[in-house]
């Protein structure tokens, strides 16, 4: 059985075209991952390699946050380990969230803003089909963006690991994050935007609203630096499970709100 019928595939293709032709969305979808997955890790790696660790403010404090598995690392290796395992994971929640919410804003709110949603609703496609095609299209686009970002990130970090003679960075935390939490967050970003789209009058307004869901994620990772808790594989697994349940509930709720009367309000 095909996941999408031919008419639904046409909607996905059309949405990809619309997203790509919207300059701001295109820039966000390219620049944010490039900065987070490539530019910042390279910058950090260069800093670690060329700036003596005793000149970095708070380096000693940060060392105290290191888990047991990094006990034998020297100062440079420790700093790189901290960056790879405590800062960068946050980027891989922000990249899927940003790309999914921005593409969904363009696909759902943008369609409403440009008054094209009515035309789409008048086609022989059912409202359910339109919803499915749009949601899956945004998820697919966001998944591709995240996957490419991760491959680029993995190359940069692997080069860093080789230079600093460290073991390969991928651990259980990363696997759970990339394979479970990031996809769950992607779905969350899209479905949340569908909910917001009913109330948002403009694409920009909906993007601003999506900012509220980025905040808890940042707090989750910043919290580690306070020493309150450390993100373990188990905790991430639990977080992924919570987000999957939230996705399911929001999907049900959003699909019920996705009616012609509400969309044309």
């Amino acid at each position: 059985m095909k996941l999408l019928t031919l008419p639904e595939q046409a909607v996905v293709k059309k949405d990809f075209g619309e997203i790509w032709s919207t300059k701001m969305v295109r820039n966000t979808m390219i620049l944010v991952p490039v900065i987070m997955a490539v530019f910042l890790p390279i910058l950090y790696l260069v800093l670690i390699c060329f700036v003596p660790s005793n000149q970095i403010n708070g380096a000693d404090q940060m060392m105290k946050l290191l888990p047991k598995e990094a006990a034998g690392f020297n100062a440079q290796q420790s700093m790189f380990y901290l960056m790879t395992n405590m800062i960068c994971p946050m980027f891989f929640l922000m990249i899927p969230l940003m790309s999914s919410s921005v593409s969904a804003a363009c696909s759902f709110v943008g369609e409403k803003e440009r008054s094209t949603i009515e035309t789409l609703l008048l086609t022989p496609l059912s409202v359910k089909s339109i919803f499915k095609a749009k949601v899956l299209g945004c998820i697919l686009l966001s998944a591709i963006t995240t996957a490419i970002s991760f491959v680029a990130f993995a190359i940069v970090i692997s080069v860093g690991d080789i230079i600093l003679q460290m073991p390969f960075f991928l651990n259980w935390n990363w696997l759970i994050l990339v394979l479970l939490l990031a996809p769950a967050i992607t779905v969350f970003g899209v479905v949340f935007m569908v909910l917001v789209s009913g109330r948002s009058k403009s694409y920009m307004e909906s993007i601003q609203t999506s900012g509220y869901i980025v905040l808890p994620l940042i707090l989750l990772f910043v919290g580690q630096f306070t020493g309150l808790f450390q993100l373990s594989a188990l905790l991430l697994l639990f977080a992924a499970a919570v987000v999957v349940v939230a996705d399911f509930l929001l999907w049900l709720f959003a699909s019920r709100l996705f009616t012609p009367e509400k969309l044309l309000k």
Partner: protein
Amino acid sequence: MLLAAIHMENLTKSYDGKIIALNRLNLDIPQGGIFGFLGPNGAGKTTTVKLLTGLLKPTEGVCTVFDMSPQEKPCDVHRICGVMTETARMYGQMTGRQNLQFFAQTAGMDGPESDQRADELLKSLDLWDARDRKLSEYSTGMTQRLSLARSLVHRPGVLFLDEPTSGLDPESAQTVNAMILSLARNTGVTVFLCTHQLRYAQDLCDGYGILEKGNLLAAGDLPTLCKNIGCRIRAEFRLAPGQSPEGLQKAGEWWRTEVRDEDEMPGLVRKLIDSGHDLYEARLVKPTLEDVYFEYTERREVSK
């Protein structure tokens, strides 16, 4: 008996529970021909189209299109309906051809079939030369024509057109009207035309419905509407200055009287000549749709 293409029974819509946008509308529109749904802005014409196409749910009553409820089977209704409204826009970043291909694909056509249908419509609506231009670069007239093409892309049996000539210059409006007329006459499509441009409506439509503030004031063909409201044909005469014939009323340079039908005209002419009047010109003036429309709306105001 022929199945009514569009059926409305006590169709009522209120958006907020207080103001009634459409009040107990009862109307049956037969298959084929063009039905003009007339009324000023805010009369409830667009609401009716949205109810008939399943975009809105009625507060009360039912409606069907070819015996299918747009609320229960919106996809089936959309499969046989083409809809062109002022608020249903197309994709500005896509070319005219891409837009039509996309909408053909949403109707289930595959790649080659959608290409063929898009090209066919672009040629017939005189948009072939602009096919590869982005829609955002189209003029209003071209956009309207493309919207008409979009509504026809899946070869519908019923066409809902909401102010199709709104914002067009007279030449473009005439072109669009000619297309609508040719469609109805040559393909047997039933056209539900919402407009407040009465002159165009009279040229195009076979039947009319007059809507005001959500209430249907009258429905039928022009002779029926005239008969029901008492609008009659007028016999008008231009006579030599200073002459005042008996039983005729003066209206500018002309003297006039109402007649039941045109058979009365020869008798009136003969009478005027026999009574020694110098007759320069004589004419029969049939009530226009505009006359009938205003007669209905004014009478409603008076009855209020």
